[in-house]
Structures are given as C-alpha cells and as structure tokens.
C-alpha cells in the first residue's frame, strides 16, 4: 500500500497535468472563438460587389476593392525593400557574422523585432512624410519594409544554418571562392526555407495597422500612385470598427474575414511545407 505522502505526490502530479492541459485548452478555445466570430460575422457581407467596389457613404453599400489594391501595392513596395535587405542581413549573420560585430548585429536584429510598429511609423513620418509634406504609399511601404527586415533576417539566418556543412566543404574543396559557395550552393539549398520565411514576413506585415496610420494614411478611392495616400485593408477595418454605423461594422467584419483568410492560409501552407524540418 502506498504511503500517504506518496499518494499526495501522485495526486498532485495528475492535478498539475490537468491544470496545464486546461491552460492549453483555454488558449486554443480563445483562438476558436475569435475565428468563429470572424467567420460568422464576416460571411454575410461578402460578395463580389463588396470585393471590387470602393467605399461609399453609409446606406449605399460600397466595398473594399480599393483597400485590397492598396494593401497589395503596400505589400509589394515593402517586399522590394524588406526582402533583399533582410535576406542580405540573414546571409551576413549566418555566413560571416561570427565575431563581435556579428554578435552586435544579431542582438540589434533581435531587439528590432520587438520595437513597436507604431514607433516605426513615427520614424517614417519624421524622415519621409515631413520632408515630402504629405502622406504617401511610399512612406507606408517603407514603414512595412523596415518591419520586415529583422523578421526576414532571422528566418534566413536560421534556414542557412540548416544547410549541412558537408555541402559547403565540398564546394570549397573544389576550389570555389566563398562568395560562389554562398551564392551558388548554400543559398539555393536554403532557398525554399528562405522563401517560406519571406511569405511569413509578408503575412505578418499584411496585418500591420499602426505604422500605416500616419504614413500611408488611407484613402476612400482607388489609387496606385506612390506619392499619394493609399488605402489598406487594416486601416479600413480600424476606421470602420470605431465608426458608429452598424453597416460599417458589418463591413469591418467582412474585411477582417478576407484578411484572416489570407493570413491563415499563408501560415497553414508554410506549416505544411516545413513540417518535416521542425
């Protein structure tokens, strides 16, 4: 027969397992509730007209076509800025950044990921919007691009570090200089990983709102001019959510459903592609 003390230890062990399992259940439950609400509230207002129309006054319908176009322009711009620089930083960290300076860069990249996106917005306002004297798609793209850099840099570094050393050594043994080894052997070997990291980074900034409020600002019209304010899905969701009109609230949910569909599918596809690696 077990002693009392041993019984207590066993019981408390199972109690703690139950407690930790419930914590996990709570988190997954909250996710389910949020996604459920988005689907329920959003699905009613979505139709083709909503996806291609631009906003109209309350009572006249209107849609998010210009916001979808604007988000695409902003994401394209930010990818042009964020992906090359982010990948270069990642390559530097993985292939060269071993010394003190490399450590410093790694530390700063890690810390940059935690800088609030609104601070990036204020910074871009100071260096782009103020000199140009008006809000612009360019400023929004730069803000999102800056946010992408550390995210892309870290995933690139991790993906390159997964490339086996034997590949590098083989190329070096054949007499290739280091730059050919990196560009011709290591990066192609890590390319799919770098690409999935890039997709995740794009999905991540596609949900950013705060840095766009006073850079891209928002617009109620179709626009693809880089020197003009431009709409985005997230800013439109924000503006509609805090408006007093039920119709706009419904549209905010519908726009959220569109945005979440994009973000979730990227996350799930990336997970599927990388399931063997992790």
């Amino acid at each position: 027969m077990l002693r009392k003390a041993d019984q207590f230890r066993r019981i408390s062990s199972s109690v703690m397992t139950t407690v930790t399992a419930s914590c996990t259940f709570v988190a997954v439950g909250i996710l389910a509730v949020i996604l459920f609400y988005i689907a329920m509230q959003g699905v009613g207002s979505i139709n083709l007209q909503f996806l291609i129309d631009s906003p109209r006054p309350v009572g006249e319908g209107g849609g998010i076509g210009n916001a979808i176009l604007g988000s695409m322009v902003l994401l394209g711009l930010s990818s042009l800025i964020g992906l090359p620089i982010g990948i270069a930083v990642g390559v530097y960290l993985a292939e060269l950044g071993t010394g003190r300076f490399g450590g410093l860069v790694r530390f700063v990249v890690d810390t940059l990921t935690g800088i609030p996106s609104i601070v990036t917005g204020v910074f871009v306002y100071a260096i782009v919007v103020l000199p140009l004297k008006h809000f612009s798609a360019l400023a929004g793209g730069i803000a999102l691009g800056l946010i992408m850099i550390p995210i892309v840099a870290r995933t690139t570094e991790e993906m390159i570090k997964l490339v086996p050393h034997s590949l590098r050594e083989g190329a070096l043994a054949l007499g290739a200089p280091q730059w050919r080894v990196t560009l011709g052997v290591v990066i192609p070997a890590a390319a799919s990983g770098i690409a999935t990291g890039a997709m995740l980074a794009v999905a991540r900034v596609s949900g950013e709102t705060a840095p766009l409020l006073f850079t891209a600002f928002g617009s109620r019209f179709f626009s693809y001019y880089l020197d003009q304010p431009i709409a985005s899905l997230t800013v439109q969701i924000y503006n509609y959510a805090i408006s007093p009109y039920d119709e706009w609230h419904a549209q905010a949910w519908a726009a959220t459903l569109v945005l979440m569909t994009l973000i979730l599918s990227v996350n799930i596809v990336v997970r599927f592609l990388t399931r063997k690696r992790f």
Partner: protein
Amino acid sequence: MSYQHSQLGLATQDLRLESLFSGWRRALSPTGNTGDAVFRTLMFSAGLLVLLIVVAIALALAVDSLLSIRTFGLGFLTSRQWNPIRGDFGALPFVYGTLVSSFIAILISVPLSLGIAIFLVEQAPRFLSRPIGFLVELLAAIPSVVYGLWGIFVLAPFLRVHVEPPLGQWLGWLPLFQGPITGIGLLTGGIILAIMITPIISAVVRDVLAAVPDTQREAALALGATKWETTRVVLVNGAPGIAGAIILGLGRAIGETMAVTMVIGNRPEISASLFAPSYTIASAIANEFTEATGDLYLSALVELGLILFLVTFLVNGLARVLVWNVTRKTAGRAA
C-alpha cells in the same frame, strides 16, 4: 627640391593607398579573392545598415522631440496634464495606463503561458503537442486590429455583462473594482493584451524548456520523482530563460497599439479603478498623431514615441540576453 619632395609625398600616398586596399581585401577575404572581398563588403554593409537604422530611429525621434524636451524637461514624465488646447503636455496618464494594462496582461498571461509550455513540452504526447503548439502560435498571427475589432464587439460586451458586475459586487470594497461599468477600460485592455502576448511568452518558454538537457529529467526520474516533480526541476533549470520570456512579453505588451487603442477608452486620466477608461503611450500616438496641430503638440507625441522606443529597446535587449544564455548555450553544446 620642392618638386622631388612632392613626388616623394605622392609615392608614399600611393603606397599607403595600396596597402590600405590590400589590407581591406585581406581583412575581408583571407583568400585574397576580389569577388570574396566585394561579397563580404556587401553583406557587411547590410549588417551595418541594421545598426544605422536603429541609430537613425533614435536620432530622428530625439531631434523631432527636442522642442517638447526643452519645454517640459523631466516634468513631461511627472505631469498629469494632457491638454492640447492649453498646450500642456504631461505623459503621466499614458505611462500609468501603459504600466497598469501591461501588468494586468502579465498577471494573466504568465501562468497561462507557463501552463501551455509545460503541457506541450513536458506532458503532452508528441502527436498532440505539435499540432496544438501550432494552434497556439496561430494566436500570434492574428493582427492587432483584428483583436481590437473582436475586443470591441465581443470581449467588451461580455466583460460588461458577465465579468465586471460580479467583480464589482464581490470585490467592490477594493478601489480597483469601483465605478461605472462600461466594458471599455483598463481591465479590457489588459485582458486583450494578455491574449496577445500568451503565444509569444509560451513559444519562448517552450524553446527554453526544450533546451534544458534531458539528463536533468532522467536524474529526477531516477530518484523517483513524479512527472510534476521532474517538471519543477526542469523549471528551475530554465528559470533565467523563463524570466527572459516574461520580459519579452512585457515589452510586447508595452508597445502593442491597435487592439489596446480600440478597447481602453482613450481618456488621459489616472483612476484607481480598472473599470475606468485609460490611455497608453502607444494608443495616444496612434489616436492623436494625425490630429496634432502645432509644433509643440506633435513634438510631445514624438517624445512619447521616443520613450516607447527606449523602453522597449532596453526591455527587449534584457530579455534577449536572458533567453540567449539558456537556449544558445545548450544549442551550442548539442552541435
């Protein structure tokens, strides 16, 4: 004579340039390959660019907040007056709102995240732990503005009807739970922050726990420890990393903007009640930046941005050092 002298000078300058160049090449590429030197320079400048960005952010924010810094000095942080019309700008209500909402978030999120991480690393079978871990991570993929939308229309009404009245009834003798119940305020902001930082804290704690060597678990089990007692040994081993994870979550909570802006009420007042509307540093910037008329107003908002930048940079730096010490050490050992 003078002609000779100048020629000599030119020659030594040439030599110096030459040696500088080859020195650069050698430093950048031990093999002396020009392609390597160019490649290394490019990659190095990318690394340097990251440092320059951080310096540029600090400088730009400092320059644009000079006016406010000169006008208010340190009083900016201790004044409760935020009155754009009279030109009085004091950040204390925002600092208070930021600290209290982040504290509520940490209070709720830390036990929850620890529970999740312990369950996923120590207790759940592998076939369960991976997909569930992915689901928890998905919480981090939801954009802030979506949390805000959900917060306004689902969480705030729920708290107003089902949570805040009983709190006021049972704990109303505390100043924390007094006052009118609207569903919009510090408590709602803190809860939505807690949901948002839980996936972040739990992900880092998972990494930290996974980095604790299995020999620790085996030793505990060999001594006859139960599963929970073994977990406690693991937790003690990962303690600095767990502290880092919590600080990382705190940094995220401090800087989180949209969701908080949408549910906290945006009123620059300091009230003891958690039901009362409040304001955070980040939400003040988000809410008032485009409306800021006048240089001093704008400058005061930029100074808020500068404070946010410095605080989150320090907090994140500290967290990284703590987490690195645990995860990188063991990762290095394994490799």
